[in-house]
């Protein structure tokens, strides 16, 4: 895919929960290979937005196109096939706590790989994904035995196992100490380089944002309030933008 091709297009998306209008005519385009960070206050709808992109949440109106496919027009099987190309790193990691690390990584493969492929290639793929995050030795451990940072890395390895073209990160450094947060941010950069994936990152962590963002979008009152590079937005005089950098 060539540079500057939009891989995710969000147009006039609205989403309400009762009287709470979370997204109001929100629009954005994300180009191939980009690391886009969406910044906004807690409860401003950032997580809702990326869950709409992968159709975990249905929008009220508007359209979302991912890798050239309108997600609302897809049937269940087509949507599941598209989801193989989209990785999602959950804020809570969402590791299956009744499964070992290996079983966690094997889980996405059981739907998208044939039994023969799994028997031949799954072990190698799991090991490679774990090596990418530097945790090959945890393969037979349970998630409960891992630290917060390790769980985040394993969750990232599970996201990478299907070699996604787009990766959605929901607050990847929240709850981690600054050192581990920096390590995770660096890992995200390394992953983006290795897999040439497009990333959409939800974050409040300015250190993380500064490290990874090619471009930023400010989500304020459910709208795409402003966009630009980290330094452009940091230098902005608008009080609503400035308060994020203070």
């Amino acid at each position: 895919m060539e540079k500057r091709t939009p891989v995710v297009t969000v147009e006039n998306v609205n989403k309400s929960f009762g009287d709470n209008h979370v997204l109001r005519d929100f629009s954005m385009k994300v180009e191939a290979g980009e690391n886009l960070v969406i910044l906004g206050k807690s409860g401003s709808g950032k997580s809702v937005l990326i869950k709409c992109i992968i159709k975990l949440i249905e929008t009220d109106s508007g359209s979302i196109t991912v890798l050239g496919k309108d997600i609302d027009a897809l049937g269940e099987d087509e949507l599941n096939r598209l989801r193989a190309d989209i990785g999602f790193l959950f804020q809570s990691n969402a590791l299956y706590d009744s499964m070992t690390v290996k079983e966690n990584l094997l889980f996405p493969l059981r739907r998208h790989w044939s039994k023969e492929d799994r028997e031949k290639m799954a072990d190698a793929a799991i090991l490679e994904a774990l090596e990418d995050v530097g945790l090959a030795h945890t393969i037979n451990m349970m998630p409960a035995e891992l630290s917060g940072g390790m769980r985040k890395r394993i969750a990232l390895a599970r996201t990478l196992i299907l070699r996604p073209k787009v990766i959605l990160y929901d607050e990847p450094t929240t709850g981690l100490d600054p050192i581990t947060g920096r390590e995770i941010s660096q890992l995200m950069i390394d992953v983006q380089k290795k897999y040439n994936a497009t990333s959409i990152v939800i974050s409040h962590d300015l250190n993380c944002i500064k490290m990874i963002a090619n471009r930023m979008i400010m989500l304020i009152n459910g709208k795409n309030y402003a966009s630009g590079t980290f330094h452009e937005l940091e230098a902005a005089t608008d009080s609503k933008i400035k308060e994020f950098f203070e």
Partner: protein
Amino acid sequence: MVRLKLIFIIFLIDIGLYYSYVNWSNLSKIKAKVFKILNIKSDFLNEIGDISRFSARFFREVIKPKQEWEEFINQCFWVGYKTLTLVGITAFIMGLVLTIQSRPTLVEFGAEAMLPAMVAVSLVREISPVITALICAGKIGSGMGAELGSMRVTEQIDAMEVSGTNPFKYLIVTRVLATTIMVPVLASVANAVSLYGGYLGANLRGDVSWSLYWFQVFDSLSFGDVVPSLIKTFFFGFAIGIVGCYKGFYSKKGTEGVGRSATTAVIVASLLVFIIDLLVVQVTDILGLT
């Protein structure tokens, strides 16, 4: 009585609304007014509607191809094998206690010889299936409510969906099928073990030979005692599975929600066990199987 009839009519209207795509706005307004008059909150009926839809989805998913057989076997192991000891001990004590407590009354009427027959009919027709179902409602229903609730809260169900796996099929269909099949198996084991308990109870104060006891037990049991009793345990199993899964799958956010899911799963499943039991007794009575 009039109030009860009105509630029943509202219940029918509610079920009708849930299964209809017709715009029943006027009927809804009438229903709302009736509710206002009767001061009834519609939450209870909404819950029944939601569970009905959840059950309908289960039947839709169960007939779709590609079942999760590995997970189903895993759930059968957890539901069946892991509950077997608890059910077995409870059933044995039940048989023993029932025999010991029934004996004085039968002796008083000079019907001591009827003890094995009375115990067998009581245990097989009613006590073993219902107690087994209640144990399962407590152990399995709450376990499913808490497990699925915790998975919902920690976004594991969302992660499953994102990875292209249908969480309803993987988590719900397998669990509900496992309870539907394993509760009758557990109830059958409970029947057998409780009758052994009965034999021990009969011999604590009296003297009944092994062969005479079992001859009287099998002589007293008929088709109408065993089969309806077994059939109702399938319904018990289905109700326990569907309620536990429903409560867990739609658990509200937070640990409080997980706890509430587990508790309400036990309460609703236990209540359903008694309601199903009542209905089955009525049906078998109408069919002349009693």
